[in-house]
């Protein structure tokens, strides 16, 4: 800001901020890309790969991340220590059960530049499985980043007014109810019966 004094402007430009991201119901890849951008310092106009201007990023609720598709069962994390017989392959679900922060940690590690600064950037990444954060980190936080994915609402979260405002697309007729009663073993749904103004049916 032009109204700041020189020392305040210097401080505002080069200070290391602490960002907070809530990863609940979010895809881990998108969270990891947001983290890697801020850990490298690429969100700052003064970026240079050699100047160590990355910020700290705190990710909470990593236990509640949501993979799209069937990745929990299909995605496989492989590792080999170099010794014979130590090739391990774990699915994302097994990995997550063993360590709830591992998926995001590996994703961020793979997105950072493959040089010696990567390890220092990983040290500035703080992952927490739940929303319980230690006090010293809570005191350092400066900004919360918006979540990348819009969480869809469950049917139970809609109010009755919203449900009533939504029009019925199809209405059952007496003939349809008759077919249903004659042919189906499943009893007629109460919701279908409620659409009939008065409960006057043929065969009762």
């Amino acid at each position, binding site marked *: 800001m032009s109204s700041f004094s020189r020392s305040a402007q210097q401080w505002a430009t080069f200070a290391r901020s602490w960002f907070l991201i809530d990863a*609940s*119901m979010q895809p881990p890849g998108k969270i990891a890309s947001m983290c890697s951008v801020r850990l490298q310092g690429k969100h700052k106009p003064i970026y240079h790969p050699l100047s160590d201007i990355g910020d700290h990023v705190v990710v909470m609720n990593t236990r*509640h*991340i*949501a*993979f*799209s*598709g*069937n*990745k*929990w*069962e*299909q*995605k*496989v994390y492989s590792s080999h220590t170099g010794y014979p017989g130590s090739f391990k*392959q774990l*699915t994302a*679900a097994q990995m*997550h*059960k063993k360590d709830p922060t591992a998926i995001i940690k590996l994703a961020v590690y793979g997105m950072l530049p493959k040089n010696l600064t990567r390890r220092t950037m990983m040290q500035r990444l703080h992952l927490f499985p739940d929303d319980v954060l230690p006090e010293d980190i809570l005191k350092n936080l400066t900004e919360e980043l918006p979540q990348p994915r819009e969480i*869809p*609402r*469950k*049917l*139970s979260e*809609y109010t009755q007014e*919203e*449900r009533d405002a*939504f*029009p*019925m*697309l*199809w209405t*059952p*007729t*007496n*003939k*349809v109810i008759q*077919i*249903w009663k004659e042919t*189906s073993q*499943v009893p007629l*749904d*109460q*919701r279908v019966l409620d659409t*009939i*103004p*008065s409960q*006057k049916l*043929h065969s009762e």
Partner: protein
Amino acid sequence: MAARCVLQSARTALRTVQSELSSKGLFQRTPGFSQLSFLGSRGLRHVVEKKDGKMTVIEGVLEPTSERPQPPNPTASCPIYRWNLQNKYNYTDVLLLSQFIRSDGGMLPRRITGLCAQEHTKIVICVQMAHRAGLLPDHKPPLPEGHVPKPKSNPPLNRYLTRYSVKSVKPIYKTGLKWCKKRMSVGHPALKNNIRYSPKPLYIQH
């Protein structure tokens, strides 16, 4: 075809009424049944009996429909086309999907809802994805009485846009090289014609 169904329903209604009358044997059969009512619109009717001395008139009277918003395209056969919702809904539109499912989560048959074949399959796919994403928590099948659920060792994992059922999928141990990679499928190709407001194409193989 709709007219034939209406005529059939009216004929069966008349037949049941006539059989009742003949079994009772007390009242005269009136020749002047209102022949016009079953040529009118489909709808719910209730049976009304009127007595004038020795004459009984039994009629199926159309019930006044409550004031409901009219669809913008009433001449279409499929409800989705009637409301111009083709290519506009997704697995997140739970208010729409819940109109085509039973209380235990299963789909209503096509002959009942009146959906066309393509839209019925699309709705089935969206309902499956919504169930797997946990967006329909109250539409679970009823458990037998006195059943105590076992304590689950793994808490349920959050997921969305799952194409295949969780138990049927195998892990991809060897993904292959970049040119022949075994991709993980997300979403469903049946919804590829959905309207997208971003310039990026639909990304189905991750």
